[in-house]
């Protein structure tokens, strides 16, 4: 497998762990610097963080309902983390942590367990009615089908983000080996659109999966 050169790596651990640590450091330092001097009229970095905050609040209130406010810290930190780690891949010498299945699978599993735990907490024993299907006669088959379609959600959730980010990184790497002038740089800046789009889709699907297990069965 072709691999693009990586500048910074701590020996003994995989490269994407180093990148995750870098992303965490970037987010923490950015949050610290922004938090030091907050202004009433936001500028620069503060307006970016406020945009994510307000957007997340809006979507949570609209899609989940009034009780959605408590998921704001989790979902907003998903947005910031995925966005930063997607965009890190655009810098030469770094790779995205989300270009490995491990990172995205962990994020998707968090959403999976959280959504079902929240559903059980809200509906108690009635939560199993979501898995029984429309008719009581075909319930034994429907429960298998429902469980399988519930299991397919975290896979597709994780695989979509991973595949997109990995594919664009791999494309840049292949171009780098075929033709190392100018063209890979153009492709790297084309990545930014995909990065934003995939971060948004992942974040919205997380909200939607929580909302689907919270809503009443009609």
């Amino acid at each position, binding site marked *: 497998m072709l691999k693009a050169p990586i500048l910074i790596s701590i020996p003994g651990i995989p490269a994407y762990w180093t990148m995750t640590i870098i992303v965490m450091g970037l987010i923490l330092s950015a949050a610290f610097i922004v938090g030091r001097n907050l202004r009433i009229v936001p500028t620069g970095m503060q307006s970016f963080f406020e945009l994510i905050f307000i*957007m997340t609040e*809006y979507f949570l209130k609209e899609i989940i309902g009034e009780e959605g406010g408590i998921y704001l810290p989790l979902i907003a930190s998903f947005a910031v983390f995925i966005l930063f780690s997607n965009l890190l891949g655009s810098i030469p010498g770094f790779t995205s942590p989300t270009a490995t299945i491990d990172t995205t699978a962990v994020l998707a599993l968090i959403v999976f367990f959280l959504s079902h735990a929240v559903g059980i907490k809200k509906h108690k024993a009635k939560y199993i009615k979501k898995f029984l299907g429309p008719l009581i006669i075909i319930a034994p*088959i429907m429960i298998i089908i429902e469980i*399988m379609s519930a299991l*397919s959600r975290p896979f597709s959730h994780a*695989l*979509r983000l991973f595949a997109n980010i990995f594919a664009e990184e791999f494309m840049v790497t292949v171009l780098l080996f075929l033709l190392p002038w100018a063209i890979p740089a153009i492709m790297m800046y084309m990545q930014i659109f995909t990065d934003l789009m995939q971060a948004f889709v992942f974040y919205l*699907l997380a909200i939607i999966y929580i909302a689907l297990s919270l809503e009443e069965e009609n």
Partner: protein
Amino acid sequence: MPLFIFMDKEFIKQITRMSSLGLNLIISVLIGIFIGIEIDKYFGFKYLFFIVFLILGFAAGIYEIYKAVKRELNTKL
């Protein structure tokens, strides 16, 4: 409110959900194949549960589409 105010919540929800259906369809088939092969290994059958769970996996993918489409028919945009 931010620039996303012009987006209908039901519209954006449905679009995101619909766009992940294609991947869901194939992954539920794969999960079905995996479960079928494991059960076959456990009970010593050759192909029985493999085929049963292959069909169930396909049904699960179709059922996911059915649910999304039913929801779309019931909502007004």
